């Protein structure tokens, strides 16, 4: 099949970007979207032009590296699918495909389609963990976890941290990402001791990074390649309210004695 790509090109974070028109001829419908970009890049390189920069790694939909906006939709037209797993059979011959980076204030463009998502790492570092120093754990079966809780925690933990939720949100909110982590850990008995301090810290970090607030558009869940449920945003909000009433700030609970 023959396609016309309109691709966002931007030299570096400070440069002005622009759309470039690139013809992609003889594309096989069995190619993945990124393999199509590989072919385009090989041709650009041999023609003496600069290849398109984009993040990618595992190419099996789990590392969360890849992700571009395809015709206005993060990760493109197939629901529940990362860019690397999207195949060209979902496009038609002659189609114009507009390819842009994930756009959000908290995700500055590094080059072309590559953005800086380190804000997510800082949100996790703020509290997205269970403090469990190596060697201190009791036997794996000492703390029972109901199957329902384990399954629901797994649903939340399936998030791959790609950032499509932020790119799709009109407010560039990270509520689905943060909600998924707060829920994953908060649903498990092991996560209870830090449940309230965690939600405080992660929401504060999210705000500090420049993500917007949630106004229930639910675009995030519509584009999530792992189908993480927007119910976890509700859970995040409930935990935040709980934290306000139930949790004293960390310093007040520390025994200074």
């Amino acid at each position, binding site marked *: 099949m023959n396609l016309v790509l309109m691709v966002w090109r931007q030299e*570096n974070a400070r440069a002005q970007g622009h759309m470039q028109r690139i013809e992609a001829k003889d594309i*096989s419908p*069995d*190619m993945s979207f990124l*393999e199509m970009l*590989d072919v385009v890049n*090989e041709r650009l*390189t*041999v023609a*003496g032009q*600069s*290849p398109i*920069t984009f993040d990618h*790694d*595992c*190419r*099996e939909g*789990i*590392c*969360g*590296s890849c992700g571009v906006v395809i015709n206005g939709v993060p990760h493109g037209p*197939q629901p529940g*699918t990362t860019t690397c*797993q*999207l*195949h060209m059979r979902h496009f038609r011959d002659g189609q114009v495909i507009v390819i842009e980076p994930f756009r959000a204030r908290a995700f500055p463009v*590094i*080059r072309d389609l*590559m953005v800086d998502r*380190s804000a997510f*790492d800082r949100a*996790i*570092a*703020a509290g*997205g*963990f*269970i*403090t*469990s*120093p*190596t*060697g*201190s*754990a009791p036997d*794996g*079966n000492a*703390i*029972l*976890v*109901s*199957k329902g809780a*384990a*399954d629901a*925690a*797994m649903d939340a933990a*399936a998030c791959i*941290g790609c950032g499509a939720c932020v790119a799709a949100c009109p407010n560039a909110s990270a509520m689905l990402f943060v909600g998924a982590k707060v829920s994953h*850990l908060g649903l*498990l008995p*092991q996560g209870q001791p830090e449940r309230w301090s965690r939600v405080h810290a992660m929401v504060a970090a999210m705000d500090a990074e420049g993500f917007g607030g949630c106004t229930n558009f639910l675009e995030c869940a519509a584009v999530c390649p792992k189908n993480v449920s927007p119910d976890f945003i509700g859970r995040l909000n409930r935990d935040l309210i709980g934290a306000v009433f139930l949790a004293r700030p960390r310093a007040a609970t520390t025994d200074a004695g």
Partner: protein
Amino acid sequence: MELKANLPPGPLHTAWERHRFDLKLVNPANKRRYQIIVVGSGLAGASAAASLGELGYNVRCFCYQDSPRRAHSIAAQGGINAAKNYQNDGDSVQRLFYDTIKGGDFRARERNVYRLAQISNHIIDQCAAQGVPFAREYGGQLANRSFGGAQVSRTFYARGQTGQQLLLGAYQALSRQIAAGQVKMFPRTEMLDLVVVDGRACGIVTRDLVSGAIETHAADAVILATGGYGNVFYLSTNAKGCNVTATWRAHKRGAGFANPCFTQIHPTCIPVTGDHQSKLTLMSESLRNDGRVWVPLRAGDRRPPGQIPEAERDYYLERRYPSFGNLVPRDVASRASKAVCDENRGVGPSGRGVFLDFSDAISRQGEAVVRERYGNLFDMYERITAENPYKVPMRIYPAVHYTMGGLWVDYNLMSTIPGLFVLGEANFSDHGANRLGASALMQGLADGYFVIPYTIGSYLAGSRAGSASTDNPQFGAAKAQVRERSNRLLARKGKRTATSFHRELGKLLWENCGMARTAEGLKQALARIPELREQFWREVLVPGGQEELNQSLETAGRVGDFLEFAELLCRDALLREESCGGHFREEYQTPDGEARRDDAHFAHVAVWEHRGEGQEPVRHTEPLSFENVHLAQRSYK
């Protein structure tokens, strides 16, 4: 090159405990004076960096990805083994040890493997405490499933995303240490050389992948946890960025490279569709619990699977290996698939494929049960192939997956360069000639959480903190070499991209050093690789510059290293004149086509020493002695 394995003497089952007592300690107040570099942030790297940070060391951790959470451990699907015996089905540390030694075709050290089996149980405890959402029974206990090469159910799992969940656990522990200031993280940074001063590893040279800046970092010890070299075959189940550069550079600086020819071909991957293919996708081995592998009985039978009656199907694994059936180890299953395809009984457009059929499991247990167990894998299969595996059998074929070979390490996980430690897939230590399913996650986390925190302390206790400095001229020299090599790649402005060379190298290796190897084929590859390498350096086209984000330059640097490493891989395969595990030499097989080991001449680790550019490397050996298991022809019949 001296190969001192430092194996603790005495009885096997108390060896690690006694060894730990004999290791020197660093007192808590002194730990903060030591600097440790960890390269790689997968299961081994992240767990090591987090644990060492918790102990109070100053850690710097480097990864080429944009976040440590993206390391390729994340793609491991099936599970992690442990000898908990929660199923009451006869498992024990001894049995996990035995299965792993036998699964590795008796080419691993007994003492390392026994330690791994002992530690396995602590890993499950640690991960459950971190909040890894393992699958549970209705009573709340941890659930298990079966995996290849074992007759007990000892595999713990989190749907088909076990690697993801274990890595996120380690990443979150690492993130806690980053927030605490104990670990400084350097994402989008690639290690391009190791710096050795007075025979000790004391730092690395890196390239900042965003700015292009080449930098040096000094430390009291360096840990490599940079994964395997499967991408030397171009097509593999590895992530696109996985490479041999860190371990190869360390090898060229003096670290012995052990058993490079021990590569694992995984039997259940989605078949290749065309030349555009950039990687291969694994379908978890756990699928063989419920899926039955078959091909048509008659050669050249091209009917769709639904039209082939039961009597005209050959369930060849069940036929050849009645006691293990579809759960034979990976090397055995892969070779059996190749054999039936060589007989022109393969399926799919290319004829290089076999069916993995779930219709029996679906009619026995219902689609809902199968969906709960494997739903994400079935969805992934359908996305890639546009076929619904609930309705038609999957088509699968073997693909390069894991590399058992790696940098040689002693019992303390230290390489032949003092101060350079190697963890996880990057080392050679525990899997012998073939790794069993669900054992890679176990080894990566064992090394990072429960071995290195003890052994590195003993090394550091014997060295003066802060003695390494980037002011040393060795750092400047290494940095200049890295820069010069990049400039050479950029200056060539030839006609072919680095990827096209990589693809050609991959084809050459797959044909001559893949599932079946012969002396003749290996000699041909050994003649061709230097030509290809020379052509690469003459004709490669790398656009862009050094001082900028340049993915083409990153790729070209890695391909350049693969072109050197490939020669060592084939050389090792040629000189190991036996078949064992993933290394199958056609000249050495039993009458019924099974691997024939030669314990009299090859019950050893082959360790290669680099002697300089253009010089033949030297092959050293570390003999393997088996005092606790009986060396036997591996049988899964």
